Every structure is written in structure tokens, then in C-alpha cells.
């Protein structure tokens, strides 16, 4: 249609409403990375010797590694010696009381809609709030402890449950896994730890909220969730960062372990600062997330809504070891303005009758580039394995791009693997149809996009589905004039 480009071309500046900076005194390490810095981080956190050793091993491997270049993303070189690897608010709260949280930080989380007072929280959600490199508050700890559930910052877990941490750390993502995960293993500062004991269904959503505040710092958090036999847990993470002209690096690692008959549902709403409409600034989100379905009949579900970051590079995957185990990946990734995303999943079928489902929805607007990259590997011994993959791309405007790279490695003839892919464009005719019924263009786009993402939103816990839908609206704001 003659006017489709005309209407769609006008890109308005998008508002990122989480872009403020909090003025708190920071305790930061000097710029750069060497073994001294790693000693310093480990010392600050009073870590046991084995953990320092683990970090150093990782660092030595990392020095031999090269930054990966296979991603379908473009960015300038990262100077790893120009990053601050540890930054924490000076006033550390006592771990006993939420009242001791620095009022400035408390206000920050309130502004973000994450109140740290338990009575104000949505019942049914326990929050661990991570501010730059450290966890500043965890709510509902005691209530959860009554059930034997451990939910705390990673640092606290190292102090209070060192055996559990040592038993599982690096068992899903080894310290030598890949460039960014290895860097994380060397310098990770904090993150969340959750342990659900045998037979316990966690009665509330566990949630971690990550906030980058300090300038020039990298954020390297590490999350470890272990679900024992017959237990289940639903976990959510959210993230934001201030608006800054420089790019900031975020290289996290998440490890999930599900034992026999255990279920872990891990949902992410990622809204790191995406950069401005000219492509300046924004977070480099280079993340390694992996779950291991170790036990029989175990199940791990990844749901992600990725709307932020200048560059997203992440492939939450499942290693399906236990027989009959199930891995699922539901993803919505949007790229607007100059954002780039190369994201997808890896489903590694090792056990018999293992099943995996992949539903990926990529939305590109502005000059955004959106790539789905997914691996389905069926090992020799994985009799009766099944996979269903569906990758849909939606384009808004004519300067953006969508790319799909599915990799299939099938080594067992009994496997059944299905792959479907589609690319569509939000048509001028769809928008006009909605407008003729009284809806504004923005509402029309939101509705069309929500419809497109429905299968993924359905997987999110109720309140977060609403949040995600709104976030998507904000993230695509101004994509159509």
C-alpha cells in the first residue's frame, strides 16, 4: 500500500521510564580485571577458599577464551579492563530486617513498583532485590523457611548453606562453559538462591528484581535454583537500569536443577535500558541460562519476555536427562529502534521419552533486528523423544529484520521433531480495521501484538502477564506514527 511506509516510518522517541539514577554512596572496586580483583571480590564477600579457587580457575580459563562472534549482532569492541567489576551500596543492610535498607534504595524499588515492605507486597510473591552487585533485601524469608524453602541472596547462601551451593554450583553451567559464563564465574557478585526441599510445593512466586545503578559497572549475577524430588516452584525475575550514554555489560548465569518429579517454572521480564532512539547506550545482555532435568518426570519451563537491552544474547535451554522429562521454552522478544536480539533455546534430549516445546515470538520494529537461534539435539539413547518448535516473527515497518536459525541434530530414528515458522507484517489494513472500530493506532498495535504473543503470555503468572502486555506496549511505543 502506498502510505504504509509513510505511516509506519515516523519513529517517535520512546520513553524509558526506569531511566533514573539513585544517589547512594557506592563501594566500588577499581576498574579492570586481574586476579587481585577476584581476590578482592571474594574477600568482600567472606567466601570460603573453595569458591575463591573456583573463581580463579574460571578466570584462568577465561583469559584463554575469545569473545564469540557467531551471534547475529553487531557492536563495537568491549574493553574488559574498563569495567568496574564490583560495586555495592556502602550502607549494607542487616540481613535480619528490611527496615535497615537504605531509604534511597528503598525509594528506588518503590519507584520501580517493587515495594520491599512485606505488608505492601502482593501476597504470593517473595522478592529478592539486587541493587548493582549485591542483594539488598529478601522478603518473606521466614515464612518460606517454615516449609524448609531457602530463598536468599547468593552471598547469604554461600555463608549459610555452603554445602548446597558447593554441591550444585557449576553442575549445569560449568565454569568453562562459554566466554560470558566463564567471566561471570570469575567475578559474579550476587544473585538469588532458591532451594525447594522434597515434596514441597512453593506456595508463592519467588522473584528477584535486578537493578543496575552505578555507572560503568558490569552486572554479573548468578542464580541457582534446586528443586528436590516432587517439589515445585515458580520463579520470576525482572530487571531495569538507568539511561546512560555508554553501554553497560550484563553477563548473568542461571542454573536450574530439577530432581525426580520436580517442576521449575522460570519467568523473565527483561527490561534493561535499550538505548535511545539513535542507538546510543543501552545494556549488553549476554546471559547463559540453563536447566537440568536431572530426575525422571521432571519439568523445566522457561518463559521470557525480552523487551529491553541494546543487545540480547541468550539461549535458556534444558538438558533433559531424566526419562520422561519435559523442557519448555516460551519467548517473546521485541526489538525497536536499534535494538538487536539473538535469542532462542537449546533442548538437549538425553533421556527416553523426553519432550520439548519451543514457542518463540519475535517482534521487530524501527531498525530492530531479531534473530531466533535454537538447537534441538536428540542423543542416541533418547528413544521416543519429541520436539515441537514454532517460531513466528512479526514485522512492524520496513526497516527492521527477522531471522531464524534452527539447528536440528537427531541421532535416534524414533525421534519426532516438528518445526514451524512464519513471518508476518502488521498490515496497514489490520490497523485501519481497528481504527474504523474506534481504537487508536497504538491500541491497535498493542492488540495485534498481544494476539501474536498470546501463547507465551498464557504461560506467565497472571499479574505478570498484565505487566508484560503493558511493557510490550511501552516498548513498541512510537513504532508506528
Amino acid at each position, binding site marked *: 500500500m*502506498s502510505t504504509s511506509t509513510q505511516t509506519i516510518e515516523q519513529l517517535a522517541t520512546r520513553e524509558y521510564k526506569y531511566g533514573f539514577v539513585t544517589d547512594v554512596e557506592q563501594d566500588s572496586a577499581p576498574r579492570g580485571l586481574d586476579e587481585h580483583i577476584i581476590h578482592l571480590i571474594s574477600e568482600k564477600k567472606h567466601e570460603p577458599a573453595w569458591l575463591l579457587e573456583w573463581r580463579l580457575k574460571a578466570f584462568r580459563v577465561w583469559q584463554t577464551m575469545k569473545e564469540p562472534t557467531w551471534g547475529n549482532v553487531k557492536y563495537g569492541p568491549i574493553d574488559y579492563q574498563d569495567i568496574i567489576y564490583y560495586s555495592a551500596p556502602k550502607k549494607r543492610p542487616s540481613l535480619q530486617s528490611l527496615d535497615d535498607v537504605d531509604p534511597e534504595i528503598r525509594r528506588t524499588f518503590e519507584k520501580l513498583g517493587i515495594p520491599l515492605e512485606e505488608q505492601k507486597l502482593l501476597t504470593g510473591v517473595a522478592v529478592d532485590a539486587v541493587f548493582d552487585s549485591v542483594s539488598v533485601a529478601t522478603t518473606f524469608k521466614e515464612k518460606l523457611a517454615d516449609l524448609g524453602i531457602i530463598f536468599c541472596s547468593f552471598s547469604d547462601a554461600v555463608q549459610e548453606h555452603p554445602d548446597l551451593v558447593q554441591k550444585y554450583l557449576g553442575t549445569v553451567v560449568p565454569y568453562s562453559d562459554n566466554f560470558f559464563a566463564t567471566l561471570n564465574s570469575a567475578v559474579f557478585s550476587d544473585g538469588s538462591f532458591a532451594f525447594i526441599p522434597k515434596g514441597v510445593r512453593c506456595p508463592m512466586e519467588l522473584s528477584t528484581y535486578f537493578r543496575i545503578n552505578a555507572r560503568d559497572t558490569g552486572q554479573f549475577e548468578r542464580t541457582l535454583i534446586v528443586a528436590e524430588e516432587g517439589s515445585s516452584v515458580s520463579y520470576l525475575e525482572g530487571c531495569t537500569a538507568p539511561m546512560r550514554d555508554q553501554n553497560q555489560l550484563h553477563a548473568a548465569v542461571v542454573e536450574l536443577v530439577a530432581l525426580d518429579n520436580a517442576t521449575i517454572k522460570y519467568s523473565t521480564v527483561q527490561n534493561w535500558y535499550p538505548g535511545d532512539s539513535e542507538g546510543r547506550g543501552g545494556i549488553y545482555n549476554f546471559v547463559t541460562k540453563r536447566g537440568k532435568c536431572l530426575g525422571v518426570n521432571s519439568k523445566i519451563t522457561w518463559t521470557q519476555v525480552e523487551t529491553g537491552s541494546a543487545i540480547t544474547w541468550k539461549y535458556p535451554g534444558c538438558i533433559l536427562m531424566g526419562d520422561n522429562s519435559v523442557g519448555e521454552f516460551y519467548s517473546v522478544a521485541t526489538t525497536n529502534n536499534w535494538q538487536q536480539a539473538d535469542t532462542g533455546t537449546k533442548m538437549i534430549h538425553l533421556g527416553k521419552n523426553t519432550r520439548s516445546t519451543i514457542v518463540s515470538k519475535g517482534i521487530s520494529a524501527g531498525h530492530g533486528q531479531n534473530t531466533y537461534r535454537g538447537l534441538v539435539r536428540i542423543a542416541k539413547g533418547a528413544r521416543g523423544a519429541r520436539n515441537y518448535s514454532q517460531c513466528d516473527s512479526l514485522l512492524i515497518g520496513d526497516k527492521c529484520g527477522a531471522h531464524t536459525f534452527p539447528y536440528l541434530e537427531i541421532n535416534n530414528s524414533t525421534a519426532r521433531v516438528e518445526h514451524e515458522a512464519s513471518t508476518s507484517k502488521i498490515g*496497514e489494513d*489490520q490497523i485501519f480495521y481497528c481504527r*474504523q472500530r474506534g*481504537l487508536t*493506532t497504538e491500541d491497535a498495535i498493542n*492488540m495485534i501484538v498481544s*494476539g501474536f504473543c*498470546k501463547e507465551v503470555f498464557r504461560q506467565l503468572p497472571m499479574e505478570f502477564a498484565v505487566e508484560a502486555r503493558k511493557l510490550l506496549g511501552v516498548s513498541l511505543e512510537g513504532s508506528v506514527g
Partner: protein
Amino acid sequence: MKLRIIKLHAAAAGHEILRGIDLAIDAGEVHALMGPNGSGKSTLARVLAGHPEYQVTAGEVLWDGANLLAMDPESRARAGVFMAFQYPVEIPGVSNAYFLKAALNAVRASRGQEELDAIEFMTTVRNRMAELGVDEALLNRPVNEGFSGGEKKRNEIFQMAVLEPRLAILDETDSGLDIDALKIVAHGVNAMRQADRAFLLVTHYQRLLNYVVPDVVHVLSEGKIVRSGGKELALELEEKGYGWLEAPAAAGASTGG
């Protein structure tokens, strides 16, 4: 409440399609707009609805005295102008109920009426469905996705019934319908005929007019209204075809019917 179209010229992609339309429709009237393919019938409907593909090059359209052409499409909809699409558009993953509720509440909000909650909405909608004989399962299906041609057109009429416009433009809603579907569409229109509502039925065939009797019939040819008359004009066209109407300047043009 009046629609006044004055010397309207409109083009698409640089080609002039409407070449000076004059038309007046008053509240309570049903006007049929007929004409051969390419005469500009659907263009007029879409220009009135504000379709971005068309550029108005001259003339004006007054709706209740206001400049309709200065309004964006959603404002026109909120001001009571509804168009049933010739080719209703699919919106995958969005249920008909959700779509219609959003539309109805957008229209209501602009009229200063309160938004309907889910229960009030369902009550309103169920009543309309019963009147039109539309299956309730339609509500949970994605907007027009996987609908047959007839279902799509019925869905348009259903939307019209829920949104209660003051000017309903039906853009060849009858085309491609079998006789049963045609009767349902006609029944919907007749049920909605009332003193404060006007209709503009764009149609190629006289067939629809057997069931919806118009007050005025206009014949469009090459972007101009060349004849206007009572309902008997439609019958005359049925008998003689469109050829005899064409302007002398267009001699040698096709004699479609």
C-alpha cells in the same frame, strides 16, 4: 444529523477515482449506491471511513455540520460512522469478544459514557446475538481468523449491531454471499433501521435490495453520480445493465452488468 458530501474528489496512488460526488443522506434514510466495477463505489465508502490509501483532492464532507475529512479514522468511528468491510481483516490471537469490548468502550468513552465491564458487555452482546441469530461461539474465536466468507460478513453486521452507529456504510457486504447469508445480513440491517440512523449500502447487485428496501438509489459511473432515483431505479438497472447509463464521453467502454 446529516451527511453532506460536496463536490468530492479523491485519488489513490495518483489516479483520480472520485470526480465530484454530491450526496446528502439524512437520518433515518437508507441509500443504495450502485454502479459497475471500478466506478468508485467502494472508494467513496473508504474515503468516508478515512482509509489512508486514498487522498481527498477537493471537496468536503460534513457530518452533523463538522468537517469529517479532518477527523482521523478512529474519531469518525467514535462520531458514529461505521463501515462494514468488503474484506474483513483477520487479527490472529485476539478474540472477537476482546476486540469488540475494546471497540465498544472506546466509542462509549468518547461519548462520555461509562465503560462496560465484562458482565455488562456480555449481556449487551448476548442480546444482539440473539436478535441476529449469531452463534455465541463466535465470541471466543479470533477476529475473522478462519471464518468463511459468510461468517466474516455476518460478523461485520454483528459488530455494527453492538457498536450502534449513526451512519452505517456497508461496502459490498452482500457480495459472495449465498441466499441464506444474504437474508441474515438483510435482516440485521432491517432490524437496525431507525429514525436516528442512516445507511449507505454499496452494492453491485440489486439482489440485496429485494430484502432491504432503499429510500434512494444512486448510480455511480466513473467517479460521478449519474442517476438518482427511488427503489425502482435498482430494478431498471437489473434489467438493462449499467451500459445505458454511461456518460457519452465514455462511449466504447464496457457494458458490464
